[in-house]
């Protein structure tokens, strides 16, 4: 190794960034969307009617109704999850798990009638949330891939800081009158440096959220691999009560809900009922997090057959657990109000821009000389760049569009929306690989812009009559239009880009160029 330190860091930054860049772009885009997960879910179910308040009586009655439904439909399940109505989503959401590996059961009930709620089936914002760390793969695979990419991203961030020799003097510099490579480098530097605190925080805390999966050895040694025992002992969940193996009858949960509400002042979010037909059944009431950086849900556990309180968890974490929950809380940003959330969202967009500009920079810096045929490696990177950077936003738009256009009674409708998402992604990536690079970028980004605009048209045409709060829906549509305008602007810039003036003067008649932008 004859190279200097900075050169070897530049090499490390280039190649570590390239190999994980495509996955990271997808993780950044879906993670940024997840800041508005609840809003996306609401937009995707315009039939939903919100309520001003949810009274303790409604909560207790909803819990009883949920248990009655589960006793009839999911008696054999090991665990029941009951999402209780909130003013934003006044519905009862039930999940149950019968055995490991089997798909969980799921139903959405109207608490007033007890019948399944009349809503279009969709995965809503939860799809982006899960994709963000599982990539729609089996959880274990997805989490490992995302985690490894995030760890490499930390390497890329730190080596990028070392490589960047003019962090301060180029802090405000975005040159657009120089060569394409210089412009892309400036864009990469500005989006990376300006939001650097966010990038470091979000990558590090992202790895921390799943740290126990990536580094299980401490828990394996101290708790024989029983992660639940570890979480219980550190005060993050209530203690596990193993099944007795004797049949038992669950006491009415309504009174338990009332007692839990009297114990904890936060809004009640859900009930978890473990081993519901066992003599040792457990009902856990889980509350929303109190306002704070830390991700901590207060919980009250009841013995299922008697209805007696067995444990109350509310604050009081030890320093190590508090550190962990605070890092997780910073990652999720549940504490962020509307204005701070916009800033987090902008930082997320800058993360997307940093990854995308880095990927484009790789191919712009290695552009074949004009007239030369690009090699296989360059064409592969170009196709993957375009397939990811244009394909994924196109897929997001198509997912929204499918939500408005697929027939409401289509069997497996929620899965069809996801199929449209991946179908569009593959289509954009496949079609984008054929035309000349510059034309491919221009056309694909114009198509993405058209798709986002089409979502707004489809929303106004098919769902306007369902809007319970027109201003809110118009606001969401305005955000989609802003995205459409952004993509249209980039496509337009690519069409207009003519290279720096100096270079044009030197070469009076430029041959057709291969710029990516």
């Amino acid at each position: 190794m004859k190279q200097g330190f900075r050169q070897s860091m530049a090499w490390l930054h280039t190649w570590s960034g390239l190999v994980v860049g495509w996955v990271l772009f997808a993780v950044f885009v879906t993670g940024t969307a997840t800041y508005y997960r609840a809003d996306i879910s609401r937009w995707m179910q315009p039939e939903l009617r919100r309520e001003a308040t949810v009274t303790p009586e409604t909560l207790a009655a909803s819990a009883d109704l949920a248990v009655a439904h589960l006793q009839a439909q999911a008696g054999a399940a090991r665990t029941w999850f009951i999402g209780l109505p909130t003013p934003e989503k006044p519905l009862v959401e039930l999940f149950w798990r019968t055995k490991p590996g089997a798909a969980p059961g799921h139903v959405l009930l109207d608490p007033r009638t007890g019948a399944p709620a009349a809503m279009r089936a969709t995965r809503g914002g939860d799809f982006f949330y899960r994709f963000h760390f599982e990539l729609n793969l089996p959880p274990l695979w997805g989490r490992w891939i995302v985690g490894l990419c995030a760890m490499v991203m930390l390497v890329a961030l730190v080596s990028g800081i070392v490589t960047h020799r003019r962090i301060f003097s180029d802090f405000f510099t975005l040159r657009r009158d120089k060569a394409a490579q210089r412009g892309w480098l400036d864009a990469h530097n500005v989006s990376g440096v300006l939001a650097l605190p966010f990038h470091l925080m979000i990558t590090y805390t992202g790895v921390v959220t799943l740290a126990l999966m990536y580094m299980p050895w401490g828990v394996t040694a101290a708790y024989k691999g029983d992660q639940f025992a570890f979480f219980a002992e550190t005060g993050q969940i209530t203690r596990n009560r193993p099944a007795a193996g004797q049949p038992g009858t669950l006491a009415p949960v309504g009174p338990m809900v009332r007692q839990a509400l009297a114990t904890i002042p936060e809004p009640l979010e859900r009930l978890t009922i473990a081993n519901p037909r066992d003599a040792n059944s457990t009902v856990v009431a889980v509350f929303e997090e109190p306002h704070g950086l830390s991700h901590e849900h207060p919980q009250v556990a009841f013995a299922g057959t008697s209805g007696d309180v067995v444990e109350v968890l509310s604050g009081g974490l030890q320093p190590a657990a508090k550190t962990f929950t605070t890092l997780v809380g910073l990652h999720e940003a549940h504490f962020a109000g509307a204005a701070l959330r916009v800033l987090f969202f902008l930082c997320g967009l800058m993360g997307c821009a940093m990854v995308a500009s880095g990927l484009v920079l790789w191919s712009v810096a290695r552009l074949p000389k004009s007239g030369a045929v690009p090699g296989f490696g360059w064409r592969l990177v170009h196709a993957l760049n375009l397939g990811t950077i244009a394909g994924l936003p196109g897929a997001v738009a198509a997912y929204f569009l499918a939500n408005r256009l697929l027939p409401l009674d289509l069997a497996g409708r929620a899965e069809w929306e996801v199929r449209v998402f991946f179908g569009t992604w593959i289509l954009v990536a496949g079609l984008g690989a054929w035309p000349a690079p510059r034309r491919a970028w221009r056309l694909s980004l114009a198509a993405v812009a058209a798709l986002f605009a089409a979502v707004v048209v489809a929303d106004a045409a098919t769902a306007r009559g369902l809007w319970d709060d027109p201003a809110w829906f118009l606001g969401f549509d305005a955000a989609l239009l802003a995205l459409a305008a952004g993509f249209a602007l980039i496509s337009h810039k690519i069409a207009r880009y003519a290279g720096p003036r100096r270079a044009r003067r030197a070469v009076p008649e430029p041959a057709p160029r291969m710029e990516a932008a």
Partner: protein
Amino acid sequence: MTLLIGAGLSFLGLAALCLSMGRHHQALWPVPPESRRVLGLRVAGWTLIGLSLAAAIRLDGWNFGPVDWLGSLTGAGLLLIVVQSYRPRVLLWLVPVAAAITAVAALGALA
């Protein structure tokens, strides 16, 4: 409110630091800044950024203050970079407007 004050002070501070650099100074004025002006702008810039951190901690405490401060600093930086790169002359009126908004917001927070 904290975010507005923090973003306003950060914007003014970052704008001062930005204009203390020859390249960005010349986007607005024909000559590079003289050394006393550079010093003045840098001192003002870092003081304003320090003030924005102090204001965020004062208004939102040690837990949320630094988070709010970093968020508003990043947002203000993004606005500044886009404006001075695409329409640098807009800074000539945007800086006074930002100063006025920040002053009003700060008075509102003190009252």
